[in-house]
């Protein structure tokens, strides 16, 4: 074939669709992304939700207020305790119950332990998504300590179901303080090893730095919260803005990094683990002793009105909005999940990147699909 023919030859290239998920190793659940691809380049992303829709908000309308808490475990299962706390706080706000100091401190410590556990799991999976398989085992080894601590007190390892309106379900296990105090120096000693294994790796930095840059404006416009927003330098920590439980009496820094790329989001979470350890350390030594339950009625009825409570889960701003018409179950419950807004940023960030980058970006977003799709 001479050059003339080669030029006139109609070599068609076309974009093609590829279904990433609902069953895909990097989807972390049943997220389906409909990708329009040009070779290796992602041209368009269309998330398709609904594979794990359980109508939790609708179910809440048929349950009593004490029972709603049990359903929230199944939203963002890695921040189960913080979700429980959010609903409990909303109900307490509505009933104007003042919970014992002990409950506040316990809830905060448990919340921060949950956050660390969630970030550890994220770190393990993050490594796997960029191809480093060993991180998973390291992270799970250390997450196991937290699971054991949780199991001692609450009887459950993942869906703790520990907060109730007006208090917590059980008192702390007798070894709780001792084991938490053992865990803090342990984690402090292993986190630098994590950095040695993954953070400092040249390949990892090349995969992370400057990839998936989310500008602060976009972070605000898309409603991104949590480490995703803080990686872009947007202060969004509910723990600082509207301190709840015992968070008003502890001293901690909101980790804010600018850059907005994968590496910034990664570093935010790594540093947040240290901050969480600081919070626990400040509270663990003097847990007040004034009971674990405020007095509540057996059948809780909220007064008429709308009640909103925001908390900071490991993923960001989680909101509970209860509309009550004075009956024993709510008229309407709406959960504001951080993952949903963060997923929207992926549509923007993932465009015109390589497939490998899309996976890395979605890994730094730290999705929990049941949180996005309720």
């Amino acid at each position, binding site marked *: 074939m001479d050059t003339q023919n080669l030029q006139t030859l109609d070599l068609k290239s076309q974009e093609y669709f590829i279904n990433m998920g609902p069953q895909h190793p990097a989807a972390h659940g049943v997220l389906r992304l409909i990708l329009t691809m040009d070779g290796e380049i992602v041209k368009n992303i269309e998330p398709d939700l609904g594979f794990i829709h359980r109508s939790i908000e609708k179910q809440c309308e048929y349950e009593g207020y004490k029972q709603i808490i049990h359903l929230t475990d199944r939203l963002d299962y890695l921040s189960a305790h913080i979700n429980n706390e959010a609903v409990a706080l909303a109900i307490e706000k509505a009933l104007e119950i003042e919970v014992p100091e002990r409950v506040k401190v316990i809830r905060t410590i448990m919340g921060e332990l949950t956050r660390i556990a969630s970030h550890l799991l994220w770190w393990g999976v993050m490594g796997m998504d960029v191809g480093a*398989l060993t991180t998973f085992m390291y992270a799970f080894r250390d997450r196991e300590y937290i699971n054991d601590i949780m199991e001692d007190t609450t009887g459950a390892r993942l869906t703790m179901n520990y907060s109730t309106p007006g208090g917590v379900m059980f008192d702390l296990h007798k070894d709780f303080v001792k084991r938490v105090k053992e865990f803090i120096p342990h984690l402090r000693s292993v986190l630098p090893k994590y950095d040695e294994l993954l953070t400092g*790796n040249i390949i990892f930095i090349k995969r992370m730095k400057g990839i998936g840059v989310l500008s602060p404006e976009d972070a605000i416009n898309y409603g991104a919260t949590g480490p995703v927003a803080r990686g872009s330098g947007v202060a969004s920590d509910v723990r600082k803005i509207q301190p709840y439980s015992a968070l008003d009496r502890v001293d901690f820094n909101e980790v804010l990094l600018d850059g907005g790329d994968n590496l910034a989001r990664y570093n935010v979470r790594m540093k947040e683990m240290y901050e969480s350890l600081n919070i626990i350390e400040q509270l663990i030594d003097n847990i007040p002793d004034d009971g674990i339950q405020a007095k509540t009625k057996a059948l809780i009825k909220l007064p008429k009105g709308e009640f909103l409570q925001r908390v900071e889960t490991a993923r960001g701003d989680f909101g509970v909005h209860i509309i009550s018409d004075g009956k024993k179950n709510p008229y309407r419950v709406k959960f504001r999940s951080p993952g949903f807004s963060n997923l929207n940023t992926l549509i923007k960030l993932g465009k015109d990147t390589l497939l490998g980058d899309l996976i890395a970006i979605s890994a730094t977003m730290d999705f929990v699909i049941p949180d996005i799709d309720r």
Partner: protein
Amino acid sequence: MILTNTTNYFAKFIEYLSGAEGLNLGFAGEILAYVVIAALYLAFFAVAGLMLVYMERRIAAFFQLRLGPNRVGPWGLLQTIADALKLVAKEITGTERKDGLLYHTAYYLVIVAALVSLSVVSFAPGVQAFNVNIGVFFISAVSSVGVLGLIFGGWGSNNKYSLLGAMRSGLQMISYELSAGLAMLTIILMVGSLNVDSIIEAQQSNIFLIQGHIPALIAFAIFIIAGTAESNRTPFDLPEGEAELGAGFHSEYSGMGFAYFFLAEFINMFIIASLTATLFLGGWLAPFGITDSLPWQPLWGLIWFFVKVLGVIFLMMWFRWTFPRLRIDQLLTLEWKYLLPMALLNIVLMALVVYFDLLIKF
């Protein structure tokens, strides 16, 4: 005949058994010898593949603070054999709308390429099925045929993920072939022969890694990187790219089809490691000749060869369980912008070293 080496061993063995002197095997005897040797290689292929899988799993466990397989047989040695038996017994599933010819040719290509390149590897003095004067070139040439298997498999599966995997494997293996070849050439400058045995015997004084000092060290690094890329292992496991492509080019294979790909990957790693041992570490030669005066010479050669090969394999497994994966453009940048120019300059450097006779020999 070409296969003189091993048939001679075979003849000697028959002589030893029958007590006859100067036995002539004859035509039928030689055919029989070939069949037996081929069977031996097939058996070695299976056993070495399975044992490397076992080794990989134990080493992975060692790096990941776990125990690894330790229940089936002593120290779990039979675990991978049990796994292989399970794969044999498995139902063959896969897509219906595949390109049958390519789909089924793929794994044979991969496995035949691996087996044929294995035949040139010199395990011990004289223990080599196929002694050709272009030895290392032959290995490099034949093992590249394996990439066709990957591309056929990815194309024939009629799956977009497989196709992406196949495309990546094509890009990767053809690119890194260049650096690997140039790194080999750097070493060959020192011997002036491609024959595997001549290369090993030229390292009698000391191994090429020390003889060729700086350029040899650079070539060693390049060869290990390119070799890891050619055997599709982390950080260059893009064709499989678990998190990105599911299982890449072998997504649609099940049962033994999958097992062939899997075993071939490990045998390819063995071939890369044995090439590294041959070119840089002196093959079956004992370091400083410490076992030269002992009886059972071929056996000692075999032991030293395996020690060196397993050392290199351990290094490659270490990479796999430590490093993240590269992105496809970074992979190509590394090869075309860094490794290839470096390898070319390195050849010039080595040529100067050889010309001015600056080799370290003692």
